[in-house]
Each structure stands twice: as structure tokens, then as C-alpha cells.
């Protein structure tokens, strides 16, 4: 059963991001929103971790949050808008928010 993991905290402020990556199932996905998109800063430690995730794990980021922080999605990261966010919640069987 695949889960969509929803993150909004910066990966540099606490251990949520690292804990989440450690708990991802084979076909789970990440959706980065808010300050969590800072994990996609090229060359940073969280970015390295994202690059090293197994193939089966999809990585999404909310487009408005990328734009607001001047981060260009690269590589395996797929930007989504709000309708896309809704669609992801339908595609995955559970949505787990890291509050």
C-alpha cells in the first residue's frame, strides 16, 4: 500500500525530513510543500539524500513554493499545482502529513 508523504518543514530545522526518508516504503512518494522545498537546493545534504532515493520513490514539489523560493526543479523532481496535489492524494492510498 503506497503512501504519499506530505512535508512542509524545512529539512534544515529539525529531523522530520530525515525521519521521513528513513520510513519511506518501496513505492511511496514525497510531496514537498512550503519550506520543505528547501530540500531541493542543489548540492545541499538533503538534496543529496533525495538524489539517492530508490527509483520507485517519486518526488513531487508544489510549484508555487518552488517559485516563491527561487528553486528550479531538477532531475527526478516533478512540480505539481493544486489540482495535481489533489490528484496525487487520489493516486496514493494514504496521505501522511508530517505536521
Amino acid at each position, binding site marked *: 500500500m503506497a503512501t504519499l508523504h*506530505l512535508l*512542509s*518543514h*524545512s529539512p534544515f530545522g529539525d529531523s522530520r525530513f530525515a525521519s521521513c526518508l528513513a520510513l519511506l516504503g518501496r513505492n511511496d512518494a514525497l510531496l514537498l*510543500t*512550503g*519550506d520543505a522545498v528547501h530540500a531541493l537546493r542543489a548540492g545541499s545534504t538533503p538534496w543529496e539524500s533525495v538524489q539517492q532515493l530508490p527509483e520507485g520513490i517519486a518526488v513531487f514539489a*508544489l510549484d508555487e513554493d518552488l517559485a516563491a523560493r527561487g528553486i528550479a526543479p531538477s532531475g527526478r523532481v516533478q512540480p505539481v*499545482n*493544486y*489540482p495535481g*496535489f*489533489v*490528484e496525487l*492524494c*487520489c493516486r496514493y492510498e*494514504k*496521505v501522511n*502529513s*508530517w*505536521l
Partner: protein
Amino acid sequence: MKFAIALFSAPHAPSSRRALRFAEAALASGHEIVRLFFYQDAVHNASNAAVPPQDELNLPAEWGVFVRHHRLDAVVCIAAALRRGVLNEEEARRYGRPSANLGEPWDLSGLGQLHEAAQMADRLVCFGGP
């Protein structure tokens, strides 16, 4: 698809706005929202007494318009609301407070409503934090 949406953050948190935009997109995509549940600091989203700066988004007002327009079931956790001074007429009278700041379209009720919403919905999506 049936969605239940739970919000945990105050109106000035970006996640409150994100929850609203998500809810709007869910309905626009043809899905149903079986219940909105406002918990913890999110109870302030249901207050009609908040006065945000004019150049900022008035999220409590936007939520009110959205809930009213779509006639949604919007439940505010009563325990979380009382401890933060978010009261309807009935609770203000009961506890001898001088005014109420919560009215329609909101319902004050218990946490059981979140549990029930999670059972009724295909997906529970929670918004909180930053």
C-alpha cells in the same frame, strides 16, 4: 473521491492557506469534501473577530466564504476552541463571557467528528505546521 480535511495551524501559517487552496482544487476537480475539521490553533480560522492587516490575506474570512458557498460541514473542536477563547453564543453564555466570536457556518463539536470523518472519507488529508 471523498475527502476529509483536517487543519491544525493558525490562520497566519502558510499551511492554513495551503489547506484552503487544496480544498478549492478538490471541489473544482469534482471531488467531495465530507467534512472540514479545525483543531488546535486552526480554531482561530473560524473566529469572526480576527482583524488581519489590510495588505494580507484574510484567511478566516476566506474560509467562511468558502464553507458557506459550498455548504460544507465545517466542525471546530470545542475543547480546542474554548481554551483559546473562540466561543459561540451558547458557550459564551454558559461560561459567562462578554461576547461570542464564532457563528454560522461553523459548528462546535468534539474530536469524535474527526474520527467519523476519517471513516466516511476515502482520504484524510491533514494540514499543519509551517
